[in-house]
């Protein structure tokens, strides 16, 4: 289980490839891998976005991410998990967050990955400030739960 908070850009697919190779996770037990990548869009709430600055609380952020992964690993049989989160200045199309979960069965991979993402959004101390094309900037007010209301 690994948590990385980084000020540098990263290629999510390369990171996963490297992680699988260095950890040797694929040893016959893994039947399912679920990966979520969040990337910066160039539009939010009807406004063109030029970039974003991500602030965090060094030390607390890593600690909370580790707690979130441990909670997921208690709830589902997780073989391994990797979370990478970007901080600092970010441009559209750059990855903000990567969550990867390795399990034996597919339901667990989907469930644990989604749980980690939702918990990260509500608990990990990161704050987004959007730099707008209009040259203004604004703090993102609140994370949505990401899902449509039941119909």
């Amino acid at each position, binding site marked *: 289980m690994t948590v990385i908070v980084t000020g540098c850009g990263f290629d999510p697919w390369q990171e996963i490839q490297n992680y699988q190779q260095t950890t040797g996770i694929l040893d016959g037990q893994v039947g399912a891998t679920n990966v979520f990548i*969040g990337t910066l869009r160039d539009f939010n709430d009807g406004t063109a976005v030029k970039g974003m600055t*991500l*602030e*965090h*609380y060094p*030390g*607390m952020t890593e*600690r*909370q991410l580790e707690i979130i992964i441990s909670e997921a690993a208690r709830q589902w049989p997780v073989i391994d998990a990797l979370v990478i*989160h970007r901080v600092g200045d970010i441009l559209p199309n750059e990855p*903000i*967050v990567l969550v990867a979960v390795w399990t034996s069965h597919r339901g667990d991979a989907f469930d644990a990955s989604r749980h980690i*993402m939702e918990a*990260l*959004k*509500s*608990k*990990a*101390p*990161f*704050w*987004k*400030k959007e730099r707008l094309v209009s040259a203004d900037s604004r*703090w*993102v*007010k*609140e*994370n949505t739960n990401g899902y449509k209301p039941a119909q």
Partner: protein
Amino acid sequence: MSIKVRYFASLKEDLGRSEDILETASLLTVRQIWQCANPQQTLPNPILVAVNKDYADLESLVNDGDEVAFFPPVTGG
């Protein structure tokens, strides 16, 4: 007792500073720490608080050497 108080994101900008070092005589709660550090400012709502990098609530007691943090709802991911 010496308490480090930290502020993040929009709250840091609003207050115009990122931290305070408080010297207090008695055991205070997180809420009292805010009042002591920001006598002119009512506590924002919503607000999240942490003591020593773990989430805490406003009535948690703060000990000598603790780090208390106040910040707006998080927006990562």
